[in-house]
């Protein structure tokens, strides 16, 4: 079976080609990923969807807000209900939060600066559609590149109880320190999922961490996300 994955291009997406490349050329294994212009997207044709990073609509007004009104999100909403997997990376996360697929909001980094840097994140939930190949407590090396990634929610307790916090920024050894939290996120939160766990949003970029040649320590932790997704889709359809 081929697994069909849509990579949605919003006006201003800029990690779309990168994500497509990783899905088709690095993960490949049975995947057929396709770039879809945001208002051409039809969910029925796909098994899963990636909202890539970038600056949809220039991030004007607020990152993710204008894209959250795109017809692509209406389609995605149907997908979500049907149990298909959706991942939002960086700007994709911001869009999913603004579209209320995911709880919380992403605010301007506390340093007021854009930050491009490799960080570590600790896995807190490996039951989602994108983390089944990870273990709880694993520390992943992965880069961030964003100006508005400070996670905030007024429902922290709920998130914790429902196991919706998927990743937290940590040190290499998995400690949660202020220093290891690059943008001032609440409780070092780097990624969250929906209640049903088929929708994940995170600020770091798995597609930039999927090949040893691009990673400072020759790791490829980013692949785990996409491989988990493939596994999830296979399990779902069988």
């Amino acid at each position, binding site marked *: 079976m081929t697994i069909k994955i849509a990579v949605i291009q919003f006006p201003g997406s800029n990690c779309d080609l990168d994500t497509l490349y990783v899905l088709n050329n690095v993960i490949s294994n049975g995947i057929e990923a396709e770039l879809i212009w945001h208002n051409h997207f039809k969910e029925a044709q796909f098994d899963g969807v990636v909202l890539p990073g970038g*600056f949809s609509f220039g991030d004007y007004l607020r990152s993710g807000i204008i894209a959250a009104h795109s017809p692509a999100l209406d389609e995605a909403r149907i997908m979500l209900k049907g149990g298909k997997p959706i991942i939002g990376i960086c700007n994709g996360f911001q869009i999913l939060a603004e579209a209320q697929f995911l709880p919380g909001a992403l605010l301007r980094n506390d340093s007021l600066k854009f930050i*491009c840097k490799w960080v570590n994140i600790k896995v807190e939930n490996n039951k989602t559609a994108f983390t089944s190949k990870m273990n709880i407590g694993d520390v992943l090396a992965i880069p961030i590149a964003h100006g508005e990634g400070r996670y905030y929610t007024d429902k922290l307790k709920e998130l914790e109880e429902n196991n919706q916090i998927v990743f937290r920024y940590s040190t290499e050894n998995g400690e949660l320190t202020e220093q290891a939290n690059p943008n001032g996120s609440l409780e070092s939160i780097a990624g969250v999922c929906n209640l049903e766990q088929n929708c994940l949003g995170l600020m770091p970029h798995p597609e930039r961490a999927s090949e040893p040649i691009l990673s400072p320590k020759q790791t490829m932790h980013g692949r785990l996300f996409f491989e988990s997704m493939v596994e999830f889709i296979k399990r779902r359809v069988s």
Partner: protein
Amino acid sequence: MPKVISNGDELDVDLTQPEIKQIKDLLERDPTITEWGMFDVMHSEHCSYKSSRPKLKLFEDAEKNYDYVLAGPGQDAGVIDIGDGFALAFRIESHNHPSAIEPYHGAATGIGGIIRDILCMGVRPIALLDPLRFGPLKGNPHSQWLFKYVVKGIADYGNCTGIPTIGGEVEFDKSFESNCLVNVACIGLGTIEDFEHAPSKAYNPGDYVILMGGSTGRDGIHGVTFASRTLTEMSEADRPAVQIGDPFTKKLIIEATIEAVKTGYVRGLKDLGGGGLSCALSELTGDGGTGGDIDMSKIFTREPGMNSFEIMLSESQERMAFIVKPEGLETVLEVFRKFEMAHAVIGRTDDSKVLKVKDGNSLVVNLPATALSDAPTIPREEKRPEYLDKLIAQQTPEPKKDLEEIMYDLIASENICSKEWVYRQYDHEVGVRSVVKCGDGDSGVLRIIGTNKFLAASVGINSKHCYLNPYEGTKGGLVEICGNVIANGAKPMAMVNCCNFGNPEIPESFWYFSHAVKGMADFCTQLRIPIIGGNVSFYNEDEVNKTAIKPTPVIMIVGIIEGKENVITLPFKKTEHDILLLGETKAELGGSEYHSVIYDLEGGTPPHVDEKKIKANWNFLFELYNNNLVKANHDVNKGGLIITIAEMCFKNNLGVDLDFNECYDDNLRDDEFLFSESVGRFIIETQPKDYNKIMEIAKNLKVNVKKIGFLIANPEIHIKGLKGKDVKLDVNKMKKLYEVTIPNLMEI
């Protein structure tokens, strides 16, 4: 300023009386006011290179002399063939004046402009670089303000368009206090076919002319005139409103342009930059040997009531002009519609060799297509500054401080310290190509997906060296920038430059320019490096204090690395490995950081370049690479060799044991040896087992290479074998000093 009159309209122009006469003679009539405006802009220094053109003639004809050069000077960007069917385009430009008064938008629109230059070669922009100059930061809120917002402007624009900023350079020096320099470079990658689809000319009569992108507004009229005078010469009121960049629209323009080119229906492409439509339309038709018929009413404007003068001269951002085959019109327009990009078919080309622009029933422009580009040149006087002899004669004082203390001072100095504060703000990884990232090498290295090739790019120049000797300093800059890509394993393929100088009407300032250009020409001819483009920014001169900036002929080099195993990085890797010093160290402290940081001295003997030796050193390195003998490599420059070694220790927290006993000639003082900025040197990490083999190669190629020590686990630098007492440095302390300087100055 001369005034011209046409039909009752008056216009102040920068044209000289002879130019005015020449234009009237050429047309055999009085130009319309719009035409006057077009001549005025196109004859400005910025567009016409009237002062610099005679000197730039020294450069070889790159397209003719190098078979892999597809486009050389004269095009929007230089283009080279890198094999496997790929073409690489690159270009560098200045955006100094706008950035000096509005650092954020000035720098941002600079990035916007250079992206368009690459895009109009038909290829995708894949990397940016940004050489910058400011006054010293310490105790200087103005410099801090400029620095902060220039970096933010570049970051916001580059990040949003999804083009990684993979490198750059910053120098701080008093001479840039009132004239900061913001140079921006861009690299594009595409197939040879893409490039062939997008010449910057309209050579076929009957094609459609389409304007796509942002609307035409009143902003930025006369931006190029602004760039062609000194800042102080233009009063506040004269200054055109600095433009506001729109990276979001630019991103869509990039995608729409690339998709349109891929249709195969585009026959010509040109960005709208300085001079706006005037420049683009006259160059397209003039260079293509055609003419054009343009209907002004089709041009979409931002404000109602704009007249033809304003429309033809507007430099509104984010616009591209397309020449499209008649049979492909609908296909191309469909692409623009998909991206919701505003566009209009504004006319057609014809074989009249005349550019005609109609505004209703009146012909507001009716010019031979080549008339505008045939600007006259002006011979400028040059004179070596009198103060130079005295400066060069300055002696290095006897050090009053311990060598240790000096080294700690140097590593913390603004020009040497880490620039991480800058590149953390740049998305330098978007594109999944960045193999050697900022801070890990002398240049930025990108993989070229679909091949086993990598490109390495670096920019810079040592302004202090050029100040003392522009000829040697420029050559030294070439040695350094080539050295940067070589250090990462690349062979330098081609060069572009950005000449930032003072007022060309001042003989001393023009002398600097003239000698810098000669240095470039001589060096590049000898070392077989094609010069494929450049840009000249004059008038970086402070009228009040009568001082020009230090001459800054910025060099950009792009090199190619064959094979992943040949990508070399900067950090030291493993204890017990050998450390070798390649190249000769001489008492060349003129313009050094040592002089400036420790003694506040500008003079002395600057480094001299010996092309033969440089060439031998490079060949030696390539030979080592071929045999896989190099584990880390870093070229020696600002601050001298200990600074270089310390930088290599930081990442993996290693130390070194150095013994200079047999290394330097007895005529050198310790400080001369340690802090010399002699060019063309490298610090190389190798394995002890390879030592004999390396020395064998060195002997064959007659290069000067010496083992100076080995790596140790303890993060300390031990220096023995000096004339004076031994030195011990704490790597962690150096690293801390290296890292905190800029954050401490910029973050209160």
